[in-house]
């Protein structure tokens, strides 16, 4: 039983990363109709930025947790203004290709500067050790990630559903033309929302730094899993993306421990789930039906 709790907890923690990345993808897609391939690269930049800040400037984890998302959010906004913006009126596939190219560039930039080997990042002192939950104890840092992510997701939900900005973003996501007709300047929110999504990816990266190996390719394969997550959840649905993120984290963790005799299955379980969802509900678990094609 304690093994099950352990697996479930670890699944929720890795699900937290999927949820943060999927959330960013979903808000960006909702507002701009852009599927950002470079999301994994920004996650990597978040982790790398934290590492460089610590080793070259002695900036601690807590400061990096604030600095990197802000810096990457600004970089994202600049990027949206400079290039992505030019393609948003075209087929979304063009921006998919553009951000794919950006991914290769960002990865290679970091690779040429810092090499491909992984760098360790120490867990902040306040979060080392473990928390005792009576029957089991879990590493404090992981408990922190889980709590922090859940709080963040609740916060985003609150902003989207309870504030005026959230109302505009939701309206612009569902019916952009109609929202404009009501005299709301939708364009004004496009760049900040893009920056916010990128900031979330950077935040996930900083959170990942003490837990996972920091290297230029850490976001490369992750982003494909996150794509599968948003297909499962329904990319148009913000709640669906977060729920699918945690769900896939759980399924993966259970698969890895209970199907460890079949490594092929446990490695690919995400994609198998995606195939089942496509058969059963092609629009995703929480997605709306597309216009018939």
């Amino acid at each position: 039983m304690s093994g099950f709790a352990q697996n479930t907890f670890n699944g929720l923690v890795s699900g937290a990363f999927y949820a943060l990345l999927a959330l960013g993808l979903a808000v960006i897609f909702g507002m701009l109709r852009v599927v950002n391939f470079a999301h994994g690269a920004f996650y990597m930049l978040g982790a790398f930025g934290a590492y460089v800040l610590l080793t070259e400037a002695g900036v601690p984890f807590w400061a990096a947790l604030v600095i990197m998302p802000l810096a990457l959010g600004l970089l994202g906004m600049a990027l949206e203004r400079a290039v992505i913006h030019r393609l948003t009126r075209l087929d979304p596939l063009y921006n998919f290709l553009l951000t794919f190219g950006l991914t290769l560039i960002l990865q290679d930039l970091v690779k040429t500067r810092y090499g491909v080997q992984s760098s360790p990042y120490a867990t902040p002192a306040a979060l080392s050790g473990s928390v005792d939950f009576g029957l089991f104890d879990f590493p404090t840092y992981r408990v922190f990630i889980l709590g922090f992510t859940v709080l963040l997701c609740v916060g985003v939900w609150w902003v989207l559903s309870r504030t005026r900005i959230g109302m505009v973003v939701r309206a612009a996501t569902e019916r952009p033309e109609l929202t404009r007709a009501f005299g709301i300047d939708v364009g004004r929110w496009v760049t900040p929302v893009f920056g916010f999504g990128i900031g979330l990816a950077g935040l996930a990266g900083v959170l990942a730094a003490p837990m996972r190996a920091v290297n230029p390719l850490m976001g490369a394969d992750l982003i494909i899993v996150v794509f599968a997550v948003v297909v499962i959840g329904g990319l148009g649905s913000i709640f669906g993306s977060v729920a699918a993120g945690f769900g896939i984290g759980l399924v993966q963790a259970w698969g890895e421990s209970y199907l460890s005799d079949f490594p092929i299955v446990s490695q690919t379980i995400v994609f198998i789930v995606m195939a089942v969802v496509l058969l059963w509900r092609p629009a995703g678990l929480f997605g709306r039906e597309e216009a018939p094609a």
Partner: protein
Amino acid sequence: MTSAVDTPADAARPAPPSGLLTVARAPGWVRYALLAAGLLVALWLPNGLYPAVAVDILCWALFAVSVDLLLGFTGLMSFGHAAFWGTSAYVTGLVAIHAGLPFPAAVLAGALAAAVLAVPIGYLAVKRTGIYFAMVTLAFAQLVYYVANEWRSVTRGENGLQGVPREFFGMDLTDDFYFYYAILPIVLLGLAAAWRIVHSPFGRVLVGIRDNPARARALGYPVHRYKLTAFVLSGFIAGLGGGLFAVGHRFVSLDVLHWTTSGKAVIVVVLGGIGTLWGGVLGAAIVVRLEDWLSFSGFEAIGLVTGGIFVLVVLLFRRGIWGSVAALARRWGVARRR
């Protein structure tokens, strides 16, 4: 390209690429002259380039044409075509190593395996369109990548398949120069097949589905089945390229299944010109040649350059080479007639 999401932005998407129609509408002598010139260049190629590079160009030409068959003529952007290219490379390599068959038989086996794999992937993927189709194909290709990575007893994992033979009835094809001419007929057959598909009644229906899926459905065409058939045919042609690539390199590594390979194939098509078929061949020649030149000159960050090309092409050059030339030729033709 059709988009899954019915947004007003779709109304502003560029007119469907029409390179094919331009060439088809060109006078007969222009088409025959282009065909003859293309064949002459193909025959001359290994004299002007390193034969190994010329072999790669042929393989990538097939790959690009297979992607364009979907992207340009069916309106589906497959971002997971490495699954078919790579599966065929592995199957071809395994058949060539273990069965000792002549290499064309091994390549055929590989391409058939790719086509068989394309059936379930295509069946699931055509349930979505637009950007979702790209993400779904990408994810399934990654599934194939992980399977190959884990199934080490067969694929040799990170080490790859080594020593794929170039067996052909005892002929000595170890020299890339002769190997190029040995595979040229197969590649030309594959390209001719693609041309035939596009110009068949079946191909016209595909273009109809690309431009107006709702109308195609209303006219009674089983849209999903047409898309799936196109997907499987495309997987077969990609498989031909991948199999030849494996024999050409005498080595198969996991790279052939990686998503960067899928992405490279798409950008080769965009560079050459979406929906132009032969544009992909040009794009393949340019990208393969450039990458060879970069790695030869000791430049390490190839991704920086290919990524930069992606960005520039998508931002400034969406018509691609063939599309731009065709547009120029059309304007010139119109001006002359006045």
